[in-house]
């Protein structure tokens, strides 16, 4: 076969083809869809964190005008199995997460009943008439309470409150600590926050009794996995279920789950024999969707006089809330933290204990970066502390510990294979780009005026496009190592690409089209990408874990490659040329070096379907291919970045003003730099939100106190600085075109970078260790007071 054409679109900064429908208000999100005779659901949710349900009285609600059905947990239990998502790790303990709680509630906001009515206003009125009797049980509101001796148990049959306990030892940590010039012990805490897409969750279920088919329109990142999960809990044949994810208004991992409400809405639609819509409100979203990021780490660090980190011991607790989530289990954050805590640094001796803890809080699940923001916070704060302990520059300590360019592919102490990277170059480049020396001079001048400016660094490497072997190692029940694509040419010679990933901001309609158009010698406008419908896309996993560009992009590349072979063979047959001499370009198949000797791709397509007698012997009139892609050798590919920030802290108000924020990132070959920049900006903004503003606060009774956008602060345009981004392109040796994943990365480093900067800013007052995020005004004031006390 001839080589592929020189890429024309791959790498080009083209604007997105999907934008006009969003710009004109013509996009179709789930709440924009109306079905004939559609009804509306509202949920009754637990007001108590932990209780037995002793009675549900739906009489008044059912009698309310306009109400068509009321269902409680006992009725639901007869119609759907609970969500069970079990890890294969030996210490695992199982939870059963019902669509509606029947006997017991385990967090505030858990759904206990549902009302279906003619409109949403009436459904909400009636939901207030459902009377639920609770017999309260002691609530477990924190990791400390969950692991205390004699702690109340959340789940029957459990021997403690751990979903899972893991222990890892690599190298010889005991010897590393014995030989160290010094050791440090650090306690770090990342508080609970979440992805908070601007579009809340929502779905519409419709059951066709004659066809015995169920259709669910839902705001999800993972339509096929939702279909499989529904088939399991509803005990329906999967070929009778169609899941459609229309336009989705942001996901960030939060919409990558099968939710109890999706199951309940399906059951309700089957019950009433009419389509049922449920659109979550913001309070429900904050209470009962998916939370993230709640980690407590204790780190011990062994270092030498020259600032080399010899060894690391870590104890990781993650507050995973009340239930294991589908399809991830409650092991994702602990498994990821355990594996990646040493980060981009050459740490050969490492021990980690990791515990996923159950509490009476909203379930915890993946959110952009999954665990790595907390892991990066730990290791980066450790680097700063080693710098302080040894009197070295924090830049220099990082430089001495980063994996060196000649060490790739580098196998980490936990067995991860860092395929390639630019760890040193990224750090040096970000200092150059952001003018570190200039920043330091500015800091000095400001300090002379009594203003508190601080500089913070953070580096990370991010495993992306996790492939089959990686998920097998983690013990998850579903191995999400590959994804799939169908490339189909129609008789006009235009191309439809069907993928199992879902694009909700990532620009796949453009980037996959860039890949496929190049393969087939076509223009961007000749290729249209479709996704989100299980009836048309091949089976696959969806969009999460910075995987889509590599895996579904790779699958699109491979499927297009197969179509390309068909076109080349057909063209060679038509032109009586050797297939090896054929090229595709500008809509034509032609003989290399003989531009006059060619045939239009549109003609080949037309003939293939309408004049099949022209096809070469044995070729079928199907210009179409399906392919999957799982990057060899199955260890994923690692992106990396360095972040540098300059902040000003007001010790009186606790305010943190971001003066500068710079990123140098490396995601291998960029398919579309415009999209990459946008993803980095968005990730950094979410990281800044989690570092300074956003926190889901539970009180001692496990009542969530942040249930509106007045209590839960999202960053606005005046909170986020102009983020500067530049790129290095170290190609992955393991992936098609050397592409690495990058969707999550921006969100990983802002926490540690800002913690480092705030601590540096406070230094003239005295030394503190900034060990907790987010740095809300209250916490910054507390750190400033501690610094002042230490400085006196």
């Amino acid at each position, binding site marked *: 076969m001839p080589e592929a054409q020189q890429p024309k679109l791959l790498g080009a900064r083209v604007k997105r083809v999907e934008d006009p429908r969003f710009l004109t208000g013509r996009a179709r999100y789930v709440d924009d869809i109306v079905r004939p005779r559609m009804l509306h659901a509202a949920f009754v949710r637990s007001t108590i964190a932990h209780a037995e349900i002793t009675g549900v009285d739906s009489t008044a609600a059912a009698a309310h005008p306009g109400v068509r059905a009321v269902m409680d947990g006992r009725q639901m239990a007869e119609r759907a199995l609970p969500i069970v998502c079990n890890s294969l790790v030996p210490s695992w303990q199982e939870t059963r997460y019902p669509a509606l709680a029947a006997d017991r509630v385990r967090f505030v906001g858990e759904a206990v009943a549902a009302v279906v009515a003619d409109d949403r206003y009436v459904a909400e009125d009636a939901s207030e008439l459902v009377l639920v009797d609770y017999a309260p049980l002691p609530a477990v509101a924190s990791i400390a309470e969950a692991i205390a001796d004699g702690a109340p148990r959340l789940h029957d049959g459990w021997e403690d409150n751990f979903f899972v306990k893991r222990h890892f030892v690599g190298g010889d940590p005991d010897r590393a600590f014995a030989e160290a010039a010094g050791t440090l012990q650090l306690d770090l805490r990342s508080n609970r926050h979440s992805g908070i897409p601007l579009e809340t969750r929502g779905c519409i279920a419709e059951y066709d009794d004659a066809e015995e088919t169920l259709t669910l329109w839902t705001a999800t990142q993972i339509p096929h996995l939702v279909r499989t999960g529904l088939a399991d809990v509803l005990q329906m044949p999967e070929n009778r279920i169609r899941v459609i994810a229309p336009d989705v*208004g942001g996901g960030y991992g939060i919409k990558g789950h099968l939710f109890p409400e999706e199951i309940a809405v399906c059951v309700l639609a089957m019950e009433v024999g009419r389509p049922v819509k449920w659109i979550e409100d913001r309070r429900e979203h904050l209470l009962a969707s998916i939370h993230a990021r709640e980690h407590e780490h204790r780190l011990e660090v062994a270092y030498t006089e020259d600032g080399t980190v010899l060894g690391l011991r870590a104890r990781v607790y993650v507050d995973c809330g009340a239930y294991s989530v589908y399809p991830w289990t409650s092991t994702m954050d602990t498994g990821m933290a355990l594996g990646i805590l040493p980060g981009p640094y050459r740490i050969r001796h490492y021990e980690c204990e990791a515990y996923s803890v159950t509490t009476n809080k909203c379930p915890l699940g993946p959110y952009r970066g999954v665990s790595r923001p907390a892991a990066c916070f730990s290791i980066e704060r450790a680097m700063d502390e080693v710098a302080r302990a040894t009197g070295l520059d924090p830049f220099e300590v990082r430089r001495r510990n980063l994996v060196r360019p000649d060490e790739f592919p580098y196998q980490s102490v936990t067995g991860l294979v860092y395929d390639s990277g630019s760890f040193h170059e990224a750090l040096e480049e970000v200092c150059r780009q952001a003018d570190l020396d200039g920043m330091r001079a500015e800091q000095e001048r400001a300090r002379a005026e009594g203003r508190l400016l601080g500089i913070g660094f953070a580096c990370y490497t991010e495993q992306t496009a996790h492939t089959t072997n990686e998920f097998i190692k983690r013990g998850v029940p579903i191995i999400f190592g590959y994804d799939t694509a169908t490339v189909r040419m129609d008789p006009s010679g235009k191309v439809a690409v069907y993928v199992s990933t879902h694009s909700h901001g990532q620009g796949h309609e453009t980037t996959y089209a860039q890949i496929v158009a190049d393969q087939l010698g076509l223009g961007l406008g000749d290729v249209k990408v479709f996704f989100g419908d299980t009836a048309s896309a091949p089976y696959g996993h969806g969009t999460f874990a910075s995987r889509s560009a590599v895996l579904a992009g790779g699958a699109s590349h491979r499927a297009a490659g197969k179509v390309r072979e068909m076109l080349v063979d057909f063209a060679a047959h038509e032109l009586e040329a050797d297939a090896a001499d054929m090229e595709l370009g500008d809509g034509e198949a032609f003989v290399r070096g003989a531009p006059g000797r060619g045939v239009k791709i549109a003609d080949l397509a037309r003939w293939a379907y309408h004049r099949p007698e022209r096809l070469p012997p044995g070729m079928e009139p199907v210009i179409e291919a399906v392919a999957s892609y799982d990057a060899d050798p199955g260890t994923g590919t690692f992106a990396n970045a360095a972040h540098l920030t300059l902040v000003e802290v007001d010790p009186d108000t606790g305010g943190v003003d971001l003066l500068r924020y710079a990123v140098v990132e490396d995601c291998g070959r960029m398919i579309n730099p415009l999209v990459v*920049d946008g993803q980095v900006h968005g990730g950094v903004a979410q990281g800044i939100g989690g570092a300074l503003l956003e926190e889901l606060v539970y009180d001692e009774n496990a009542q969530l106190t942040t249930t509106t956008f007045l209590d839960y602060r999202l960053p606005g345009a005046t909170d986020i600085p102009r*983020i500067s981004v530049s790129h290095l392109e170290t190609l992955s040796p393991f992936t098609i075109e050397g592409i690495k994943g990058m969707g999550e990365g921006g969100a990983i480093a802002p926490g540690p970078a800002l913690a480092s900067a705030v601590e540096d800013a406070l230094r003239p007052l005295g030394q503190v260790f900034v060990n907790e995020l987010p740095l809300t005004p209250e916490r910054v004031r507390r750190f400033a007071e501690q610094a002042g006390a230490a400085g006196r």
Partner: protein
Amino acid sequence: MSTRREIRLTVNGAEHAVTVPPRKLLADCLRDDLGLTGTHVGCEQGVCGACTILLDGEPIRSCLMFAVQAQGAELETIESLARSADDLHPVQRAFWEKHGLQCGFCTPGMVLTAKALLESTPDPSEDEIREAIAGNICRCTGYVFVVDAIKAAAEARADA
């Protein structure tokens, strides 16, 4: 809610008669009764700005107003600006060129806020732009390219 009111709304230059309960939010009325689903609802308490429309040319939160209160006003939703890629408003075109949107959920409200800004302040500074859109939360873009888009739209407007 048995009492319903017949009201007349002027939306995007056309008058519509609708019958709604007095408690129906303007945002829900635009979406459910008029099918103008470009107006999005993100928080129902006036914080996120996704439901922003123009009322007599001024950006307002359509989730903080009842439909019955909007009688007599000129309402403008995103659907009024363009039907397709071919007739985009300069602000829409700039958002497209500069990658000022990702998931698109905040985009209609953001575009209308920007349009109103440029009509009152044709040459805004970056700070003025950020202040103007501070009530429109975007969870995807980090605002960098949104700000660039509004600057570009201002420049395009000046050149026109």
